């Protein structure tokens, strides 16, 4: 276990001897008849920035609150740094939390808010003051130390909340939608700041978010949740390029999904009959499936090529008409209507400022993709 190599490069989750820092074993949480979290098991390693990603009500916040100690699991076991957390109150845990609403104490100044946690640990007023001041310097709020929370902007409050949760140097920091209340520009800046702080302090972060873009930028790994269950865990690129199910493929980024039936299943290629496309999809690698099995073929819009002329290779090429064009500046999104009415999304980077040859509405085009560009999903 080499601590100097960043966790993102060590990849302890891929195998090895490093013990997990947070160990969640078969955790279930029920509220009456409602099961918020169901049989979740998860290992998170030291120094990770792990994102729990899912829509609202998927159980991600409940899972986080169980780690912080605000909710008691109905069954299962949580271990942090080798210690069983059962029966431990929030104030006895080596965790700190940054709340979605920030939960700053309205009657205390910014500095008192930050120093609060230190004083609870019996640290003297002078030292608490010094450490709070250092922390405020790090989040660039030194000149606001004497203000009350309501005198700050949303972005400043968010940084106070971050400082307050980091000042005790917790082993594990839990962040509940940390950037939710910020506007887009501030959000992007703060994302990188957060990663920088996390790397500097070496604290393990668990972030709950519903924003997939945020999860992609921030995390070493993402756990996608749906209806109380962890659907897939993986590095951002793995989740994006190798989704394990239609739910994950659809939830992360945008995707074209075609239903089909396996017609040929060979060790080095697979052929899928896709009535949606009015033809057959050729997959250039082996897939664990059987002939006649129902499958879904998922292909990302940026991997769909567009051309006026018919592509040389006749594999994975289909003809259609441009139904809709959306210009986003950096790229354009096309919606192509195939002969049987099915719509396919394709994006194209706008590489030139003067594109006289740009594809436009009602043009006849060919769509095509490489035989390794898409993913075959069985569920």
């Amino acid at each position, binding site marked *: 276990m080499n601590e100097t190599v960043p966790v993102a490069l060590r990849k302890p989750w891929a195998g090895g001897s490093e013990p997990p820092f947070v160990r969640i074993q078969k955790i279930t949480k029920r509220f009456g008849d409602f099961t918020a979290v169901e049989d979740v098991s998860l290992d998170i390693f030291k120094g990770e920035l792990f994102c729990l990603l899912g829509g609202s009500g998927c159980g991600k916040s409940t899972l986080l609150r169980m780690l*912080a*100690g*605000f909710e008691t699991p109905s069954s299962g076991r949580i271990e942090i740094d080798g210690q069983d957390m059962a029966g431990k*109150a*929030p*104030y006895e845990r080596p*965790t*700190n*939390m940054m*709340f979605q*609403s920030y*939960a*700053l*104490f*309205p*009657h205390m100044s910014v500095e008192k808010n930050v120093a*609060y*946690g230190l004083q*609870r*640990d019996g640290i003297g007023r002078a030292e608490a003051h010094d450490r709070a001041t250092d922390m405020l310097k790090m989040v660039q709020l030194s000149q606001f130390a004497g203000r*009350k929370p*309501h005198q700050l902007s949303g972005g400043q409050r968010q940084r106070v909340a971050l400082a*307050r*949760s980091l000042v*005790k140097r917790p082993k594990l920091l839990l962040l509940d939608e940390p950037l939710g209340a910020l506007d887009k520009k501030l959000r992007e800046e703060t994302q990188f700041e957060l990663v920088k702080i996390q790397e500097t302090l070496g604290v393990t972060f668990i972030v709950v978010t519903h924003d997939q873009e945020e999860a992609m930028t921030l995390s070493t790994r993402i756990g996608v949740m749906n209806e109380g269950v962890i659907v897939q865990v993986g590095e951002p690129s793995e989740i994006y390029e190798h989704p394990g199910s239609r739910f994950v493929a659809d939830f992360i980024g945008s995707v074209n999904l075609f239903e089909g039936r396996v017609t040929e299943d060979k060790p080095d290629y697979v052929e899928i009959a896709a009535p949606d496309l009015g033809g057959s999809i050729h997959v250039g690698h082996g897939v664990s499936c059987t002939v006649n099995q129902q499958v879904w073929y998922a292909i990302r819009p940026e991997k769909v090529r567009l051309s006026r002329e018919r592509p040389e290779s006749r594999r994975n090429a289909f003809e259609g008409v441009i139904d809709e064009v959306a210009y986003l500046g950096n790229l354009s999104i096309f919606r192509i209507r195939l002969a049987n009415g099915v719509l396919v999304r394709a994006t194209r980077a706008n590489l030139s400022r003067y594109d006289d040859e740009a594809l436009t509405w009602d043009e006849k085009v060919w769509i095509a993709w490489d035989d390794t560009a898409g993913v075959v999903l069985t569920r």
Partner: protein
Amino acid sequence: MTGAIERFPPFRWTAAVLRRLGLGGRVLVVAVPFLWLLVFFLIPFLVVAKISLSEPAIAMPPYLPLVEWDGARALLTLNFENFAYLLSDPLYLNAYIFSIKVAFVSAVIALLVGYPMAYYIARSPEPRRSLLLTLVILPFWTSFLLRVYAWQGFLRSNGVINNFLLWTGIIDQPLVMLQTDFAVYLGIVYTYLPFMILPLYANLVKLDESLLEASADLGGRPLVTFFHITLPLSMPGIIAGFMLVFVPAIGEFVIPELLGGPDTLMIGRVLWNEFFSNRDWPVASAVAIAMLIVLVVPIMILRSVQADKGETT
């Protein structure tokens, strides 16, 4: 959007005249409560103030007019002797001090009893919360006088409490509870408790639970969280509840009269005696005005302190 009544000529003319005088609908809405207070509070207060400055007389009414008209001159006589008299006789000063003491101690007890109740109600789930609130207000549905009389039945030497204690054998002599200061405190705390609970409840129910979680998360044990977060944030409720008990308790007459002993000399009783036993209206009015000053000055100071705070919180 004019209704039938607004097209009716007398209404239209009146409205036109009022508008001409600068009395639009908005002014009238404010004017009604304003006039109410003017007629039923300020004018009586001025009458009492006037009487307090006049000389007593054996007449009907039992005081001399302030302004005398001798045909050519108006003579204004302001008699401050009544106020000087209040200071000269220790009875009044003692009554004021005792009233304030009783009111203060009662308010503190009501706070200590009411705070946990308000906290519990505010933290209860919804259907039970409404029920508990109703129970707090329920005593108001019976006459206040009746309830204080009922306490006599409880506290008498052969009352419910003494009988029960004698029956269980805890005591062999009945306790003297009625006509003591204890009974007065009990009566005041009992009567005014809802006025403590309601503003505290209104404050505590708004308390953001995530603040308590944040405190716990940062290492605050429940008691620490209470003293550092809950208590300071509920200060407005505490002050409001305290004032709602303290202020009316100072002038309380019925409770010391029915439950207190002959030496329970609260200012309300002194006032009653001056008016109805001694028929000394000027001194009685002076007692009332002095009490108002004793009450209003601290409230105004408190309000200005709160207003200063309000700018920063």
